[in-house]
């Protein structure tokens, strides 16, 4: 047995496609494990199902930041910084026992060729009765300062720069964003690149009063994967889609294969009416429409992908495959060692599970591997029909969202391409390994 494995591995090494497939599969497994550890299930679901309250700091429909590499005109990259987690600097000076001056500053390089959508400050202030006073301004690269807003800030004051009257009034022929990010001395409105600084000077009037703020720069590109219509970071479903796709594909493929094999073995061993029954069920199943039944289960019964997976496995058991397995089992049944097993009084179950099925396993491995993509794509197929799992973040769900929101029509290509490419890589990885294995384990094909 060990020798067979060793020689098989040696054989596999001769096929470069098998190596590539294997590398892809291993990489996916690593990504899946890292994802599940880094973003636990509950957190992933919370983020994926989260609305504006979770994702307010992202722009909508933002392409991934790396698309800037291919752009002539760079788009502004979205980011957010917070004093609460120390990403934005905050200096507190005590003026008196009751009063403090809090200075929040943040410098950022602006190198884009387009204007951001908006800038926002989300305050999170603590006080009992007296609101703190804040003075917000932006220092331009040339040193000039543009005041944004001055006044009392409530506990959850939100300052939307583009809506601040003070800022709007300063520019006659420019929008607030153009005003902030262009050179005011020039007649033409052109983006001014350089280092900008946000300065928030706050004064508190109570002993325990404090000012905290989150500064959000709403650019037009964001992160490694971009965002969707609900401002959600697409990295979550793309990463979490990996373990789900792997689980779906492997469970589907393994489940179908093992059940088909057991049923075929039982039929071949007992013969008679058991065998006849299996044959009839197979014929009936041939007439049943596969995809429509899955759609019906999804529409009428449950959209959980595990229910649909179970149905898919059930429908995939009784297919032409069971007939070819049966034919092979019929041959094995006549082998001498089965005769010997019968002679020493082995039970039927023992013969089926210890002698019949193990002989088949090497023959099954290629089929096992190459049927994984079918199940991975099945999830996506159902998702694009709107029958994706309502809870889980999957690749198919992202494709469906993109399709429903007209991503291709409106030019949000990244939205459709990212999950599609991942699906394709997964499918190709398993298919390449599967085909190579097929040639290794079925020597008749190898010569062809």
């Amino acid at each position, binding site marked *: 047995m060990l020798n067979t494995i060793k020689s098989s591995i040696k054989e596999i090494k001769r096929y470069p496609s098998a190596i590539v497939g294997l590398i892809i599969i291993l990489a996916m497994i690593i990504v899946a494990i890292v994802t599940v550890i880094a973003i636990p299930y509950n957190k992933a679901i919370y983020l994926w199902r989260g609305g504006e309250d979770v994702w307010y700091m992202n722009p909508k429909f933002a392409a991934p930041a790396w698309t800037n590499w291919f752009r002539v005109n760079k788009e502004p990259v979205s980011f957010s910084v917070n004093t609460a987690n120390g990403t934005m600097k905050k200096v507190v000076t005590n003026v008196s026992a009751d009063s403090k001056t809090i200075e929040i500053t943040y410098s950022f390089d602006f190198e884009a060729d387009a204007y951001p959508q908006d800038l926002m400050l989300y305050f999170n202030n603590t006080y009992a009765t007296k609101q703190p006073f804040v003075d917000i301004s932006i220092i331009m690269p040339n040193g000039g300062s543009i005041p944004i807003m001055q006044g009392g800030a409530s506990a959850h004051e939100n300052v939307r720069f583009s809506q601040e009257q003070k800022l709007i009034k300063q520019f006659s022929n420019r929008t607030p964003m153009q005003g902030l990010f262009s050179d005011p001395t020039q007649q033409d409105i052109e983006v001014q690149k350089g280092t900008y600084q946000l300065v928030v000077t706050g004064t508190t009037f109570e002993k325990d009063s404090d000012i905290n703020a989150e500064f959000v720069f709403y650019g037009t590109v964001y992160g490694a994967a971009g965002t969707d219509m609900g401002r959600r970071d697409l990295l979550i479903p793309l990463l979490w889609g990996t373990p789900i796709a792997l689980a779906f594909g492997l469970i589907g493929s393994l489940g179908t294969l093992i059940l088909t094999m057991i049923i075929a073995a039982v039929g071949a061993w007992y013969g008679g009416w058991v065998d006849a029954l299996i044959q009839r069920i197979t014929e009936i199943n041939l007439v049943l429409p596969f995809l429509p039944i899955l759609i019906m289960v999804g*529409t*009428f019964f449950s959209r959980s992908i595990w229910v649909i997976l179970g149905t898919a496995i059930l429908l995939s058991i009784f297919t032409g495959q069971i007939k070819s397995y049966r034919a092979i089992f019929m041959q094995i049944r006549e082998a001498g060692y089965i005769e010997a097993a019968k002679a020493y009084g082995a039970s039927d179950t023992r013969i089926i599970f210890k002698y019949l099925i193990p002989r088949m396993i090497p023959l099954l491995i290629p089929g096992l591997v190459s049927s994984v993509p079918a199940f991975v794509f099945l999830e996506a*197929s159902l998702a694009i029909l709107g029958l994706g799992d309502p809870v889980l973040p999957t690749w198919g769900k992202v494709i469906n969202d993109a399709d429903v929101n007209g991503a291709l029509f409106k030019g949000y290509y990244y939205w459709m391409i990212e999950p599609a490419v991942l699906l394709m890589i997964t499918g190709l990885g398993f298919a390449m390994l599967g085909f190579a294995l097929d040639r290794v384990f079925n020597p008749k094909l190898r010569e062809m």
Partner: protein
Amino acid sequence: MALPAKAEPETKKDSPKTNTFLRLFRYTALRIVTLFVTVVIAIYLTILIANMGGYVDTMMRTEAQDRITQQVASNPAYRAMSTDAKKKMAQQMIQLEIKRLGLDQPLVVRTTKYLVNAITLNLGRAQNMVSDTGSRQVKSIILERLPATLLLMGSSELLLFFASLFLALSISRKYGSFWDKFVIAMTPTSSAPGWFYGIFFILIFSAVLKILPFGGLVSAPPPKNVFLYALSLLQHLILPAASLFISGFFLNIYSWRTFFLIYSSEDYVEMAKAKGLTAKDIESRYILKPTLPNIVTNFALTLIGIWSGAIITETVFNWPGLGRMLYQAIGLYDVPVIVGDTIIFAYLLAITVFLLDFVYALVDPRVKVGGGN
């Protein structure tokens, strides 16, 4: 009569001719019965699934109740009526609607009725779907969608079948060549379904290059001129047909190629080669002939596959075919349409399977109908 002695041995051991007929008749009858029973069971299962064991009934009943209550409450014509009278009228209308949908009868009765109607091809009326011409007849709904599906599936599947068959034949002649290796290397691409390629095609040809439409059957408004209409139809057909074609292309070539190679390594082919027959003769006599039953089977299955349509590709491309109709019917809980579509497919499949046995006997002299036991 003149030669009774000669006739006796004949009757004794059954003439080979009557034997053949008897065997043929018995086999045919048995085959028809088993196929029919198979279809009946499969259709009944489909009907049960389409009802989710009565679960859909509850949904439809609640939906009808809500809809009619809403209708009565919002209709200005009934504003003058008292609340009680309105309630009573709503109740009556709900009863009527439930009766129209057949929900007043128990599940067993209703499903049996569906079954009998389906088996007798009495497709009946749709519950919620309406054809574009306004008809509720399942038959007209299906017939309306059939041309679109036949066009899409027919062009892509037939092209796929013949292209892959002939390419495979020519590749199998020189295996190990560059194209042979190329096909083997490309075979894994067939693990992706047609709609998946469709998305990429839309992206490239519709969104970026803007040379082909995103979807639909013809441009809006449809051109009046027949020639322009056909041109517009062709334009809309290219992408969905190409996606179905490409998703099956390499795998089909690969499997045909392998299949032909297995047959071309038979001893009698070697023998023919040794005899000095031309490659063409060897191919038509010793490779194509024994593989003919398989080619015929595949062709027959391709033909009935055309009927079932491509649910997702049609949905992605907004192609008004049978696949999308079935998907819409499921969304509307329209059991008659679902069953109507399924029964026709089931019958086509059963007839094809039945006929194939005879076709085998015709194309392969080694096969005997009903023999082999």
